[in-house]
Each structure stands twice: as structure tokens, then as C-alpha cells.
């Protein structure tokens, strides 16, 4: 595609097409009223807010795991926010470009306490439940063959089946994004004390949004939208205070919110693009807490997903 085609097409269409997971509570799933909710869904909304100034102008397209790459390649969606781990292989052979990761995680193992498994090496010969199509499958294969160990995988696509398989004892261990394991332990088991996570993270899974290669304009827009949420948190600009922050004397804040400068126009959207994103959707912290914060069904530690200043690895490029 020619540079800029995507944005034109989106504007002509009047809505953004965003590819999401069909049902992954916390990341993207329809709620009981049929509205999409979740961390990744909110990033889609933020993009709509940037393009249209209206976060509701987004259409969510649920993509099954077979369908996700063909979906973005064929132009069925404009952007993929569907639990995709960025890898070099995908980047160079699928015609994709990855944005900065929005969620860092890695493979973890949940095991039954009474099995006596304490560390990875104890899993030699174990039966391990995992989801297909994710990089988890490859990571575990590498992990075990590097140590000369063997295992039997049980590969199940449906998450509730996967979890039930582990909980009911079909598998010795459940391998999953580490971020998801505490939820499983707390909600799905009869007695959370009977299960524990093995210490350590066993692979790198940087979940990022993806766009088609070849439209640098659109890629820039998605990339800077992500950074805007990072920088917003870093500079203390949140959904709650963004209107007051318009008056902020801080020149960096002024540039980001479009009070001064012309970066938005140069990017091909309105001047207040970052304001709209933060106002309508929030900064990173807002989004994170909304879906993984205390009181949500899936409570997650922020862990790596903190701003670099707080000891995490989220590092938004300066918006200047």
C-alpha cells in the first residue's frame, strides 16, 4: 500500500477496523451487553480517538488464531491488537510491522503443590497443558530440549478447556503467559493453596500491535499513540486530570496535548490527538488498572509493565 492509504481509507470508511481476540477476558472480550472490553480493546479505541477524535468509531473484528495473520495481510483489519508476540520471524516473513510492545509477559508454569515440583528441572517427563499457536509452544520446546528433558504437550485452543484440563489433573503443569496464571490460581481452582507458580519467567513474550508493512504514515500514527499513553503516565497526565493539564505550564505537556506545536498536523491528524486519546481512553496506567487493577477479576502485578522511571521497561519516546 502507498504510504497514507490506510488513514485515508479509515477516514473514508468512518471507522477503524481493529483485529482482536474473540474472547480473552482482560485483553479483549465482549461483555455481557455485547460491548468489547479489555486492555487491547482500549488500545483500539485510543487509535480511533486519535484518528477521529471519537473513541467509539472503531469496529472490533474477532480473529481466530488461524485467521489473525491473513486478516491483517488481506486488509480485513487496519491494525492487529490480538495478543501477538512480536518476533523477528513474524516481522520479516509476514509483511508486518510491530509497534512498541504494550504488554510484556513470558511463559510461566502453574503446578500442583502436592506434585512436589519446585523448579523447571523437576518437570522432566511431565504432561504440560498449553495453548496452540502461541509462541509458548515453541518456547517450551526450546526450553526443554536445551536441558535435554522430555515432556508431553496437551495442546488445547479453548482457554476454559485448557484451564479445566489442568485443574482437573489431566496435566502436571499449565504453561501460560505468566500474567494470566494468578487469575487461574485464584478463580479456577477449588483451593488456591494447592497450586503454585514456578519461580521465574521462561520466555520473552512482548505483546505488540501490528500493522501492514509499507504504510509508514499509519505505522507512525499507531506507534505514537502507544507512546502517548506511556508518556502520559510518565508525565502524570491521566484521564482524570487531562483537562486541567491543558493549562499546564510544562512545555512538554503542552506539545503532547497539542496546545503548542504542530506535530499532530504533521502526523496527519488533528492537533489534539493525544488529548483525545487520553481524555477518552486514558493513559497507560488508566487502561491497565481498568482491566488488571485491584478489584478486577484478573488482578495482575504490573511487574515489567511499569514506566522505566518506576523500574519497569515501558519507555515512551519523547513527544517533542
Amino acid at each position, binding site marked *: *500500500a502507498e504510504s497514507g492509504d490506510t488513514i485515508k481509507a479509515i477516514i473514508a470508511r468512518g471507522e477503524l477496523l481493529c483485529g482482536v481476540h474473540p474472547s480473552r477476558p482482560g485483553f479483549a472480550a465482549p461483555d455481557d451487553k455485547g460491548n468489547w472490553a479489555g486492555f487491547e480493546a482500549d488500545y483500539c479505541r485510543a487509535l480511533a480517538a486519535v484518528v477521529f477524535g471519537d473513541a467509539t468509531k472503531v469496529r472490533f473484528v474477532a480473529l481466530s*488464531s*488461524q*485467521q489473525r*495473520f*491473513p486478516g491483517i*495481510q*488481506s*486488509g480485513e483489519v487496519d491494525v492487529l491488537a490480538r495478543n501477538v508476540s512480536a518476533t523477528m*520471524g*513474524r516481522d520479516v*516473513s*509476514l*509483511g508486518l510491522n510491530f509497534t512498541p510492545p504494550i504488554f510484556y509477559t513470558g511463559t510461566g508454569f502453574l503446578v500442583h503443590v502436592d*506434585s512436589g515440583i519446585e523448579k523447571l528441572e523437576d518437570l*522432566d*517427563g*511431565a*504432561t504440560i*497443558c498449553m495453548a*496452540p*499457536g*502461541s509462541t509458548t*509452544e*515453541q518456547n*517450551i*520446546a*526450546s526450553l*526443554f*530440549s536445551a536441558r535435554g528433558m522430555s*515432556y*508431553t*504437550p*496437551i*495442546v*488445547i*485452543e*479453548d482457554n476454559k*478447556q485448557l484451564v*479445566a*484440563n489442568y485443574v*482437573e*489433573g*489431566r496435566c*502436571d503443569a499449565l504453561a501460560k503467559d505468566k500474567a494470566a496464571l494468578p487469575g487461574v490460581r485464584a478463580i479456577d481452582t477449588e483451593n488456591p493453596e494447592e497450586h503454585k507458580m514456578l519461580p521465574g519467567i521462561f520466555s520473552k513474550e512482548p505483546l505488540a500491535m501490528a500493522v*501492514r*508493512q*509499507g504504510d509508514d504514515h499509519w505505522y507512525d500514527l499507531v506507534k505514537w499513540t502507544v507512546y502517548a499513553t506511556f508518556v502520559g503516565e510518565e508525565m502524570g497526565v491521566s484521564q482524570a486530570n487531562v483537562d486541567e493539564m491543558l493549562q499546564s505550564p510544562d512545555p512538554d505537556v503542552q506539545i503532547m496535548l497539542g496546545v503548542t506545536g504542530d506535530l499532530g498536523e504533521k502526523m496527519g491528524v488533528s492537533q489534539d490527538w493525544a488529548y483525545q486519546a487520553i481524555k477518552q481512553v486514558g493513559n497507560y496506567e488508566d487502561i491497565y488498572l481498568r482491566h488488571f487493577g485491584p478489584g478486577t477479576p484478573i488482578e495482575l502485578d504490573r511487574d515489567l509493565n511499569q514506566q522505566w522511571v518506576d523500574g519497569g521497561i515501558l519507555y515512551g519516546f519523547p513527544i517533542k
Partner: protein
Amino acid sequence: MAVAICALGLFLYNNVVDNLTRQNIATGFSFLGQVSNFEIGEKLIPYTPRSTYLNALMVGLVNTLVVSAAGIIIATVVGFMVGIARVSGNWMLERLALTYVEIVRNVPVILQAIFWIVVLRNLPPPKNAFVLGEFGFLTNRGLYFAAPASTPVHFWMWLALAFGIVACIIGTVAARRYREVTGRYVDMLLPGLALILGLPFLVWLVAGAPTEISYPVPKGFNYVGGVSISPEFTALLIGISMYASGFIAEIVRSGIQATPKGQVEAARAIALKPRFIMRYVILPQAMRVIVPPLTSQYVSLIKNSSIAVVVGYPDLVNIGNTMMNQTGQAVEAIAVMMIVYLGISLTASLVMNLFNRFVAIKER
């Protein structure tokens, strides 16, 4: 006309090339030779994560074939039993069979497979397994049972068995020809059995009659030794074969009912017992009505095995999905699957068509 078709073909071809280049999609099947780097739970042929994708697909294909073959056998046996029960004359049995048919063919096969995996997962875990003497253990990890310890002789015994079956089929056909030509009847039952069972036995004897038995014993997380059948395989197998058996039962019923009433009366008039009437008069004639739709059901069953992914059995589609996700070459992966399934289905129809010719009634 020809010009129009060529023009259309060219137009489509241009579009495809145009669209593909626009999307920067890698094409070609070279990825099949790459290292797969994922493990497979159940494999009947050698495979490690260091093997190629092609290798992985072969594992999936063998798994698909195994579960389909077993499914076809079970579905046929159950289907025929239920179908006959539907016209058995016993009120209770007829109702029961009807209920079975209605439930089994109206509930999506996916739900049925899930139902069975849930049931099987709720069996006891290995440490308090149902113990079937020292010969077997039934657990939520599967069924483990004792089997003759593996020796290279087994390979030759299987070969002998296959050889025996082929010989038996050839013999039966030959006997039939012989009878049609000369009128002399050769009973192939005993020679057939002798071929099928005797040949492997002979091989076993020649090999020095190894009698060592391997018992499953608890070790590590599971049992080692013996033979095991996994719950995933079992759930998928029960799911697809019960689903198909409902349809087969209806086919069998209609086949039986299509047998002219006069045939049954003629058989009664020579005082044949009911079970002989079924065996010698009704079923052979019903077969010619039954076989063509039965073929369709077999093909459906083979394709239904692709729901394996919901219970976690590594069939062709399950492995194909993983491959598709790792390489991103969805179109090629789908093309491979289509070709393989088409091959299996066409082979199945071919075999059934031959069989159909065999059961067809001789007319003038």
C-alpha cells in the same frame, strides 16, 4: 467461448499476482523443510522438535488416520446395532434406539467431544487409579494396560496380519468368481481365519515365541511400560463415532425397511429363524441401499475428526494450525490440508465404491 474463458483466467491471475505483491506475503512451500521446534503429545512415528514441519504434518496425518479408522469401525458397529434395534420389535429397545439417534445426531459433534473429555478428565488421577488387576490402570491420564513387550518381531507380525487380510480378501473374491463360473462353492471362512490369525502366529513362532510382557508401572508423573490410550484420543473417538453412528443407524433402518416385504415373507415361509432372516436375507439386500450413503458418512467422519483441536488431540488440523501460526503461511498450510483431506476422502470413496460393486445385485 474459449477466448472468454482464457480472458477471464488471465484477469483472475493478474488480480491474484497484484494482490499478493501488494500484501508482501511470502509464498511457496519451502517452509515445510524448516525445523518445526514444537513438541507433539501423541506420535506413532518418530518425531522430535528438531524434525521438520513436513515431519510434524506426517505425525498429524497418521493420528488423523488412526482416529478415523477406529471411528469408522465403531460408528459402523454401533450404527448397525442401533439401526437394527430401531426395527427390533421390542418396544423398549426401539424407543431407546430412537432417543439415542435423536440426541446423538442433533447435538453438535463439538459439544459431544467436549462432553466426553469432561467425563474422562473426571476419572481418578494416577495415584488412585482404578486398578484392573496388574494388567491395567484407568486414570484421567488415560488407560494403561499390559502388552507384550515390544520386540522387532511385532513389526513382522503386523506385516503378516496385513498380508493375511489382503490374501483373505483376494481369496474370497476368487472363491466367488470360481463359484460363479463352476458352481462349486468354496467356504472361505476357515481358510480366511487361518490366513488372518495364523500368519502372524507363524511369524511369532518362527521368531522364537517371545513371551515377555510389559506391565505398566507408576514412574515419575505417569506409568511407563505397556500400552496407553489417551483421554483426548478416546473423547474424540467417542464423539465423532457416536455422532456418525446416529446417522448410520438411520441409514441402516431405511435400508432394512427398503427390503421388500415379500422377501421377509418368503424367508418366513421356509421357516427361517428371525436372526437368519436378518443375516441372510435382509442385510445383504439392505447393503446395496446402505453402502452409498454410508460412504458419505465415512467421509464426513474423517473430516469431523478435525475438531480434534477442541479436545487437544494432535491431528492433522491441530498441527496444521500450529504450523500456520508459527510460519504465518496460512494459505499454503490450508492448501496442504485440503489436498491431504481430499486424498483421504477420495481413497475412502474409491474403496467403498469397489465394495459397492461387490454387494450390488446381479441383474440381467
